[in-house]
């Protein structure tokens, strides 16, 4: 600043303008860098937000139902439960597979314990 005082007012003005221009470009560079860092942080935030939440993710249960299918008419069916109540009796699906008339009744009733395959 002392060097500027020795200059004429016009020269002082020109020197100050140049100094401010330099400072402005430095500030603009810093601003650009900050913006880039901000974008990187936003990207990272998005990635983190879209990650599955480990602790609350659902673990699908494996069905205990028999895998063996049966045929009624021309349609193939399979049990989707291990056991069910039928006429107030608990029946294991494994046992039901051996009882053709029960299987027919289940199909006729539109039972939800079997599904077409």
């Amino acid at each position, binding site marked *: 600043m002392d060097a500027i005082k020795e200059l004429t007012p016009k020269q002082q003005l020109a020197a100050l303008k140049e100094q401010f221009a330099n400072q402005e470009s430095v500030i603009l560079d810093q601003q650009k860098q900050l913006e880039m860092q901000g974008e990187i942080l936003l990207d990272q935030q998005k990635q983190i937000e879209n990650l599955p939440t480990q602790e609350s993710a659902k673990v699908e249960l494996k*069905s205990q139902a028999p895998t063996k299918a049966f045929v009624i008419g021309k349609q193939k069916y399979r049990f989707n439960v291990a056991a069910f*109540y039928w006429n107030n009796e608990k029946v294991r699906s494994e046992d039901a597979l051996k009882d053709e008339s029960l299987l027919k009744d289940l199909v006729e009733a539109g*039972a939800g314990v079997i599904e077409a395959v």
Partner: protein
Amino acid sequence: MSKSLSLTNAAALQAFVQTVAPDLLVRMFYKFKTAEMVRVHEGIKGRKILTELTFADNLVKKWRAQFDGNDNAVGFDPRILEVAFNKAELSVIPQELESNYLGEFRKKGQNQHDWPFEAFILDNWVKKIAQENENAVWRAALPASPTATDALALTFDGYLEIIKDLISATTITPVVTGAISITNAVGNVEKMWEVLDPSLKDQGVDIFCSWQIYSKYLQDYRERYGKYIGKDQSGSVQLDWGNATLHAMAGMGTSSRIVMTPAANLNIGFDSPGDLSNLNFEDDHRQIDIWMDYKLGVQIGIARDTILVVNDQV
């Protein structure tokens, strides 16, 4: 109309002359009915362990001098009630109303807080949240891959999903009813009643179903017995063949599942139920931010055959 009066030019402006009704129309929302019926647990920040006390059979036996208390006579069966953290937010810039016809309801001047219909909109916003809660406690299902932007119904398992998992795990056994119709609804509910533990038949039990199944039951009953069944104020009906009350639950949607268990066996967890009406208002320059945070989750207390009786329809 007088022929001396020329309305030709005025009629050309007809399309622009409109009256704006100073009220808003909204759908009629249903309330959070389930929370009024089941057991509510407060103060849950994460998980609460509900414990079922179980007793083995044959606690009493023939006398003899030797002391031989039964092994494993008393058991503790934990059930985890876990709550999920949720939020509801609303951002409003009341001045933006002035860019459309609703702007006429704002007062003279530029008061950024002047928000027409504020009370009405907020009242219905809270009712809509209650509706979402009602739906979620029954139909919510936690996905295998949750994300940060999931809706309420994806943040925990509702009763129907819990029941589905209990059946898959063979913890409970469904009663085969087949599809429920207006000719078999009464008979099918009776089939489920047969499976129910006799102690609950004494004590009384609640039967939860969708409005669709409820209507079929009433139609079947009317046709069978030539009379209408009596309802209480909430629409629930006391079944005349047993100590049971049938409830239509809007939150069950179009599910065909029928759930027979005491209402107290269904549990809802909150941090504080008061959070659901605890609206926070914050000014952000011209914008008003309204928000509430709350925790919600459900669990079934005793999940065993004959205590929790369900049919085979989903």
